[in-house]
């Protein structure tokens, strides 16, 4: 499969990427390419220009900053998975990164690309929402609760570039994912965390966009055990139904994954 023609630019700096992005309205950023290139090959996307930001050192870092870990948007999935810092401070996040796709995908794919894409079955959105992380762009900071606005859509404006994400450290956090046996994308993935702002439960894969489950959060705030959420039913009406599983199946799966995540976070 061959994409429509485009002009490739290798950005030397974030500022240069911004300038090219401004100059060509049909241009797109290229991070790891693991989603965008597939879409271009199927001719579902037709950017005039690709601005490759994958080589930018300023976007590729993992650093502990007080009670948070800040990860650059250009950090590849495998780097998060093997980071000593992430494994020490938020092991659930390293484990989540390790569960994305396969080794070759993890060698290319990047945090910023995954978030900007906001695939309904992507893993990172669950960690960002579950940990109450903050997404930073070259212009502003966006709270996780405001970032994911719908299926494949985010709060990012035209020309806005994700630069880094700040994940508050949480010792009691875990991610449980039931992967689609073929693609490894989540059929349902639940990220559970005790955060400063309370217990958070974020679900990916099951609905059109990552979402929180307030009933589970309230129950877990009172009693952080799998038992506490055993009776909570998820409404199937808003969930995805496809050849891989019905909405009712996914609703049940969310409960099972949530209990597994809470058990793992003990």
């Amino acid at each position: 499969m061959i994409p429509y023609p485009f002009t490739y630019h290798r950005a030397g700096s974030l500022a240069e990427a911004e300038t090219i992005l401004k100059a060509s309205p049909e241009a797109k950023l290229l991070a790891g390419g693991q989603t965008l290139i597939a879409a271009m090959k199927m001719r579902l996307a037709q950017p005039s220009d690709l601005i490759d930001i994958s080589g930018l050192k300023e976007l590729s870092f993992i650093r502990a900053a007080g009670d948070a870990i800040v990860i650059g948007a250009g950090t590849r999935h495998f780097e998060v998975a093997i980071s000593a810092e992430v494994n020490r401070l938020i092991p659930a996040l390293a484990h989540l990164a390790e569960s994305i796709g396969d080794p070759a995908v993890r060698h290319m794919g990047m945090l910023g690309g995954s978030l900007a894409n906001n695939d309904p079955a992507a893993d990172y959105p669950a960690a960002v929402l579950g940990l109450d992380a903050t997404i930073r762009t070259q212009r502003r900071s966006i709270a996780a609760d405001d970032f994911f606005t719908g299926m494949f859509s985010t709060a990012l404006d035209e020309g806005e570039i994700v630069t880094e994400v700040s994940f508050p450290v949480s010792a009691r956090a875990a991610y449980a994912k039931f992967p689609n046996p073929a693609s490894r994308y989540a059929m349902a993935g639940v990220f559970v965390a005790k955060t400063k702002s309370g217990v958070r439960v974020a679900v990916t894969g099951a609905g059109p966009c990552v979402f929180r489950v307030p009933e589970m959060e309230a129950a877990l705030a009172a009693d952080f055990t799998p038992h506490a959420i055993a009776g909570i039913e998820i409404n199937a009406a808003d969930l995805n139904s496809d050849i891989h599983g019905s909405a009712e199946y996914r609703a049940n799966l969310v409960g099972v994954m949530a209990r597994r995540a809470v058990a793992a976070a003990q």
Partner: protein
Amino acid sequence: MAAVSLTVNAKPVSLETEDRTLLVYFLREQLGLTGTHIGCDTGQCGACVVHVDGRAVKSCTMFAVQAAGSDVVTIEGLARDGKLHPVQEAFRENHGLQCGFCTPGMIMTAVDMIRRIPVLDRATIRAELEGNICRCTGYHNIVSSIEDAARRMDAESKGVAA
């Protein structure tokens, strides 16, 4: 259209190619390195796996221009002085292939995992093969081949041979 300069199997290469040329087509059609296969062409099967700067990637999901300045190794680059790489040897001796279509990608993935992971058990090997699909073997002998190769390379002091 621009000249892309990179190293392929330890040789410097500089060729004009369209910006939209995928690395796999660049290797197969412009360099004649047809050992790298195209199975699915959608990033799922791993038949196209090559190493870019020492890491396994799917060459059907990367543009050749992205690899400019990089060091690319394909299945053709593994053997040294007419002697097969230990992973290739192990696949041959353990019957790790049938039709052979998936084999180049399997071997490139195997070399990468052996390099990265100090102790490989069968469950880890299977998990690491997530992105490589084989329609023939049922994977059993592929896993055995990689297990055997890891042992051989350990013996030959792992990491140096690749």
